[in-house]
């Protein structure tokens, strides 16, 4: 999709061609757009980060291979050296204005810390579960992120916390208690992300929390989780849309809080629908949930769709899902479904007419 600067340049060309502005004004405008263009994506730092992640994964799999050709004490020393070189070298690179390399080195150091824990567990046959190792790894990475004020390390810490939650959440062989500690981890990391100026970490945390609630709902308490999720998301959406400026000054999500709220809303509705589907006693409730879903999607589009392309696409995807859901889970009979759909169409169409009239009159 074309960026803003590309689009505005083609607009300027069109205006010049149509005689709306003269050629010299067009040139001045085009130059101004270019000068104020946001620093383009630094592919250098992205590639450095990818390389660091690949290298980190190599460290982990090398440890897992337990290769006898290298004595394990040597392996320990090499990993300790990588930790030391990674943190110190990263700090040096940062001060010399190679921020991307510095952050990449820190990521490698964090991976080496995790690899060292795996190696020690392997050396001494510690049969403790991977989850507790991930907990310590995540804590170490969080401390490093705070000390070094690093955005990538914060994201890495969130990733490790997520891995921990998934491992715990899907551990049906263990004692099967749900990873409620994740809420605390999410809160701590959310706070840390402000200090480390890590907006991506905050996005990841919000998505992870929604995933956590899905786990919770799957466990058994579907409706007691899903209904508050729907209501809470709707409230969050309303607040974020009513006062976008102040809200974003607090959460600093680049104005994308409504997007997260919509994801939460759609997820909650989907959980409710899955819970109610297929039981004839709950048809009325299922229909009500579907109506709420469509009203919610339409409201999201009308209230915030203009500002956010991402939100529009999410709303379309949610709408497609709802359409499929209503179609597949037939109401008492196909005929009833066939009746419900035009009613919904009339509702949405009516709303559309209102919006376009308002649009014309302003």
């Amino acid at each position, binding site marked *: 999709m074309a960026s803003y600067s590309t689009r505005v340049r083609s607009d300027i060309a069109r205006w010049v061609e149509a005689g709306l502005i003269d050629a010299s004004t067009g040139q001045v405008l085009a130059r101004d757009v270019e000068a104020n263009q946001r620093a383009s994506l630094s592919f250098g730092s992205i590639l450095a980060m990818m390389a660091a992640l690949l290298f980190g994964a190599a460290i*982990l799999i090398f*440890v*897992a*291979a*337990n*290769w*006898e050709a290298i004595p*394990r*004490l040597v392996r*320990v020393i090499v990993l*300790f050296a990588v*930790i*030391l070189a*990674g*943190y*110190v070298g990263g*700090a040096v690179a940062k001060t010399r204005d190679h921020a991307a390399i510095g952050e990449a080195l820190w990521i490698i*150091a964090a991976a080496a*810390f995790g690899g*060292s*824990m*795996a*190696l*020690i*567990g*392997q*050396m*001494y*046959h*510690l*049969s*403790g579960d*991977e989850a507790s*190792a991930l907990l310590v790894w995540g804590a*170490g990475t969080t*401390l*490093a992120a705070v*000390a*070094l004020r690093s955005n990538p390390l914060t994201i890495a810490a969130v990733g490790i916390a997520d891995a921990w939650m998934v491992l715990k959440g899907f551990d049906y062989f263990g*004692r099967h208690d749900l990873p409620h500690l994740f809420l605390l981890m999410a809160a701590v990391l959310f706070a840390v992300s402000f200090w480390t100026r890590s907006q991506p970490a905050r996005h990841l945390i919000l998505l992870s929390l929604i995933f956590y609630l899905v786990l919770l709902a799957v466990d058994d308490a579907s409706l007691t989780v899903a209904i508050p999720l729907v209501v809470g998301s709707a409230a969050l959406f309303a607040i974020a849309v009513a006062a976008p400026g102040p809200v974003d000054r607090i959460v600093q999500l680049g104005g994308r809080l409504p997007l997260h709220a919509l994801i939460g809303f759609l997820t909650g509705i989907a959980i409710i629908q899955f819970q109610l589907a297929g039981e004839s006693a709950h048809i009325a409730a299922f229909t009500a949930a579907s109506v709420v879903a469509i009203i919610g999607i339409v409201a999201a589009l009308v209230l915030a769709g203009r500002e956010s392309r991402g939100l529009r696409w999410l709303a379309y995807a949610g709408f497609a899902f709802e359409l499929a859901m209503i179609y597949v889970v037939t109401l008492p009979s196909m005929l009833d479904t066939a009746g419900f759909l035009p009613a919904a169409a009339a509702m949405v169409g009516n709303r559309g007419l209102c919006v376009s009239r308002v649009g014309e009159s302003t």
Partner: protein
Amino acid sequence: MQWHVQIGFLGWIIAGRAAILRSGKEVLLKVEPVDPRDLLRGDYVALGYDISRIPTRLIANIPAGQTRSDDTPITVRLSKGVDGYWQASAAWLGTAPGAAPADQADIAGHISSGWDLTPGTTVTVDYGIERFYLPEGEGVPIQNDMRVRPFGIRVALNGRGQAQIKALMDGDKTLFEEPLY
């Protein structure tokens, strides 16, 4: 700087484990094979011990009226059998009332909640020594051998009963002996 905290932490783990290997009391336990699996730390043989199941009659201090276990530590007293393998001779929820005599040893374990504690049943105890990590690809042959003849694990125990695997034994033969570091 971040590195000294992390390296210090890791070094502390190593030192603690090495200390058990160096100076812990040594016992030999009989192993029962369990299926091997493959995870973050690589190939390993999952180990079940005959002392992994403790009959409730051996547990001396079950509170009267309690029929289900809590999530709790357990101390198991081991004595050497005639075949050389150490076996459970007594157990206590929590810690043992006194130190083990010279010819016996205490091993610290953990039981999860919900085990039936009524007489005639057994509880499953975790000692933190239920895995033996091996170089890639060497787990399956050992696993297969374990099904046909007895294998053992030599374990070092420190004063608090904390267990550290020292060696994997194929009968009398030492297959893998762990260096301190």
